[in-house]
């Protein structure tokens, strides 16, 4: 019940905003209502967290109702440790984004209500997608997030927004429709083996022929690989992020794209373990390419927003690598990475968004010496940037380390090449910071004033979390690990891989861990 209320609150808020009469001037009422709704949602998610028992790996806070009986579709929600982490990410980031978006200059100021309403709609749909335990419901919510994002990019973005919005939509729609074919296939397989049902628990018990399982896996994976973007399906992201407002970019990259990686764990690996194992060599290679290629392209960017987009391609590579390395460590790391990447990218997009709005240009070459006139801003950028390059002591480091540590036990070459990504990350962040912040003040940069109290208030929670989780990630891992153990044991017992045996010598008389899979 609490999850339903959690997802419905932002949607209701969006409807209220759509019906509020338009105001003139600063539109403070609409903005306050939106922020209020997102704070209520945050409070509700904390209530849900309090009710959540981190020890258990199964689904909690569940509720199930029949929805479309002819399809076997249910309104079924529930979260495990992975789901609740991402729900929290969503509810934490939305107020930050909304508060930071108070100052966004929109092409048509009359549409402020719509801007905030669409953002709340994204929040509600994303919470729904993270907590759906029915494949049909998940698909509907997953696809439905496209519509608000499409309008957010297309109505409120930069000069090339309409092209970026269409590209975003078509790319994601192609993936989504391939997934639809797989969803239809699931129904046929399920109804052949008795009563049709889309419930996750029922689908996990189905028997698939090898070919069917692989085809269905590919259908799901196509949608998630485009969404999360995996090389070579990533080209929509830099365009979309380059044109969207900072707030939209955060919601898109930090929240909605996580549905892709979340889906890989819960739906791809959870439903088709054998096929996931079969595809993992190719996916690992693509993930490693994403890591290096994304980082290299990020170094070459002059547009700050596109740079951040490419860093995200690189980071998503790490997350996907962690998932498909099939070790408990790497998968827990990948889940934690989803949360941490959300925070650090949000901070980066928002602080650079402020810089860009004040300078009127997103080109790195138009900045220089900003540190002198805006010390707080440059400090925030430094922390956000350092977290993006996984500096120890900041949150993403822990998750990146776990991913690499897990991957090393599976494939040393993949892990070794992926480690290059960390080196390259230092390059793209530090070069960007050096060119924009240090050196003599560049002409035309005088307008970049320091952060206002409202902006500081918006960014502080993100920075605090980045530093806090960097030193003390254990509570998060405690919630994530039981869920990962459940997923891994399911994978292991269904033809996938389980953790590889340690290579170091073990004490002879202790029973060696069984080599996984069969």
């Amino acid at each position, binding site marked *: 019940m609490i999850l339903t209320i959690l997802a419905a609150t932002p949607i209701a808020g969006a409807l209220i905003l759509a019906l509020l009469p338009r105001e003139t001037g600063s539109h403070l009422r609409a903005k306050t209502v939106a922020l209020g709704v997102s704070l209520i949602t945050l409070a509700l998610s904390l209530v849900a967290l309090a009710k959540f028992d981190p020890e258990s790996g199964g689904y909690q806070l569940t509720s199930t109702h029949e*929805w*479309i*009986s*002819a*399809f076997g579709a249910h309104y079924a929600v529930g979260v495990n440790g992975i789901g609740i982490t991402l729900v929290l990410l969503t509810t934490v980031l939305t107020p930050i984004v909304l508060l930071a978006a108070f100052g966004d200059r929109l092409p*048509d100021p009359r549409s402020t209500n719509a801007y905030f309403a669409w953002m709340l709609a994204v929040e509600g749909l994303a919470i729904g997608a993270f907590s759906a335990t029915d494949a049909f419901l998940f*698909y*509907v*919510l997953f*696809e*439905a997030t*496209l*519509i608000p994002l*499409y*309008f957010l990019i*297309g*109505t409120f973005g930069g000069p090339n*927004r*309409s092209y970026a*919005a*269409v590209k975003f*939509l*078509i790319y994601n*729609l*192609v993936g989504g*429709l*391939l997934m*639809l*074919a797989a*969803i*239809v*296939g699931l*129904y*046929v397989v399920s*109804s052949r083996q008795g*009563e*049709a049902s889309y419930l996750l628990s029922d689908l996990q018990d189905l028997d698939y022929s090898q070919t069917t399982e692989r*085809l269905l896996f590919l259908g799901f994976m196509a949608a998630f690989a485009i969404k999360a973007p995996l090389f070579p399906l990533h080209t929509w992201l830099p365009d979309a992020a380059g044109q969207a407002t900072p707030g939209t970019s955060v919601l898109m990259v930090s929240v909605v794209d996580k549905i892709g990686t979340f889906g890989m764990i819960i739906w791809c690996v959870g439903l088709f373990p054998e096929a996931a194992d079969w595809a993992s060599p190719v996916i690992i290679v693509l993930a490693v390419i994403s890591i290096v290629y994304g980082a290299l392209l990020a170094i070459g960017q002059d547009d700050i927003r596109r740079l951040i987009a490419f860093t995200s391609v690189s980071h998503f590579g790490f997350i996907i690598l962690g998932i498909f390395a099939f070790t408990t460590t790497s998968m827990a790391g990948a889940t934690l990475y989803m949360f941490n990447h959300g925070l650090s990218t949000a901070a980066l997009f928002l602080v650079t968004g402020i810089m860009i709005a004040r300078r009127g240009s997103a080109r790195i070459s138009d900045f220089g010496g900003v540190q002198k006139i805006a010390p707080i801003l440059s400090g925030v950028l430094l922390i956000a940037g350092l977290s993006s390059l996984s500096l120890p002591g900041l949150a993403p480091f822990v998750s990146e380390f776990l991913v690499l540590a897990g991957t090393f036990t599976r494939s040393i070459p993949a892990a070794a090449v992926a480690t290059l990504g960390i080196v390259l990350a230092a390059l793209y962040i530090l070069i960007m910071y050096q060119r924009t912040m240090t050196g003599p003040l560049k002409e035309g940069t005088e307008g970049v004033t320091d952060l206002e109290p409202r902006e500081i208030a918006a960014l502080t929670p993100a920075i605090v979390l980045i530093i806090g989780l960097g030193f003390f990630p254990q509570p998060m891992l405690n919630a994530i690990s039981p869920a990962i153990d459940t997923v891994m044991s399911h994978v292991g017992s269904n033809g996938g891989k389980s953790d590889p045996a340690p290579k170091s010598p073990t004490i002879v008389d202790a029973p060696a861990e069984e080599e996984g899979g069969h």
Partner: protein
Amino acid sequence: MKTLITATDLPPIKAPEIEYALLGPLFIIAGAAVLGVIIEAFWPRATRFWTQVVVAVVGIIAALADTVWVYTDLDKVDADLVARGKVAAEGALSVDGPGVFTWGILLVFGLLSMLLFAERRLEGGMSAFTGRAADAPGSASEAEAIKLRVEHTEVFPLALFALVGMMLFATSNDLLTMFVALEVLSLPLYLLCGLARRRRLLSQEAALKYFLLGAFSSVFFLYGIALAYGYAGSFELSAIDTAVSNRSGSENMLLASIALIAVGLLFKIGAAPFHTWTPDVYQGAPTPVTAFMAAGTKAAAFIALLRVFFVAFGGSQWDWRPMIVAIAIITMFLGAVVSISQTDVKRMLAYSSIAHAGFLLVGFVGAYAGVAGSDRVTSVSSTLFYLTVYGISSIGAFAIVTLVRDSGGETTHLSKWAGLGKKSPWLAGAFALFMLSFAGIPLTGGFIGKWGVFSAAYSGGFWWLVVIGVLVSALAAYFYVRVIVLMFFTDPVGDGPTVAVPSLLTTVVIIIAALGTVGLGIIPGPVLDLAQHAGAFVR
């Protein structure tokens, strides 16, 4: 010498048994149409328009109520696990679940269309139909007719005749009745297409084109019927089925008959390569007629197509399925690709209707009839649901087309629609909703419809056709999205479009269509169960 036979010696002529209770909706609509003709002859001109509207609307509502009654009563007649209903009127009609469901949706489409027909506020107190169709366009007598404010109120009985033809078409149980129904539904439509008040030359050209091509396709259909009779010795679908199952006649004759009948029916649903009339006719016809035709003809013809191929030719489905697969692929691609280059809203919607015919054919070709005891979505039930959603969204979309106007009437050029979202966000939002439904985005009815036809095809063993189908959907989504981009993200050119303020009639139609589209997307359960409950065709 032979004795003369007197009348009393003749064997008694048995009166045909007509199940009046079962066929009530047909009689009500036919009766309302005849009443409309009488009113046309005798009623004073001053109040004739609204009298006709009332007769048509009341007739349709009464028929709809009767249809609901007949549908709930079907269980009592020959209740069966798979098929519900019975063959009526001496074997001419089969009143079964799918047929009566189609009556229901046809009547709803008819009702919504009648409300659009009756809209008189947009043309300054006149209907969308020409005052005197016999006048040459641009002539002095036309100007006089406009000045006298005469109107063709015959459009209402004509539409009712077309409606009864559609209803007959969907429930014909023999090929001859089907042919008669085809003509009954087509002839009034040919006429209605030529009656536009504005752009009359285009409208008349559309009517002529539709008539000539329609007549041409009817001939194919008739020839197919003749060959089927030659093969099976009967017009009845069940008798043909028996002959096909026994493989009694010449194979070539059967195949030729299937092909020719398919041409006639595929023409009506607008499948490629028999689609060429669609864009011209959709564009030229008065928009309310286009709405009626797009929703109604497609539904009736599709159910007739399913009936002929599942009932009569079900035994030789391995012969015709490859042909239909090819046509489905061509139709989807053609509709989706060509609509991208369209610059006229009505032509774009026409190509979109062609693409939808392709998606429907995907569900049809699955030929999945379900298994007893299981509640799986079948080809018939998924087609019924798709037709419901498509019809409602189409009528809504065309209703909006009637509202975007400039001094020359409706302005259908897409460039004039730029910036509509800024001018009237609600109207543009509704149009965007219909576009999203056509594109099959979740939370709209179109998504559930697509899911249904794809699952029927998948169940029938055509998973690769489903993959083609979803890829074409993405292609098709591109041009629906293009319209949204135009309305919301593009600045208006010059003065931009004017949105006329309609009377309550059109407003109600748009609201019902929008609510229906969203409702069928979020809670499709009731309608889907109804379609599922319709079962199979009776033989």
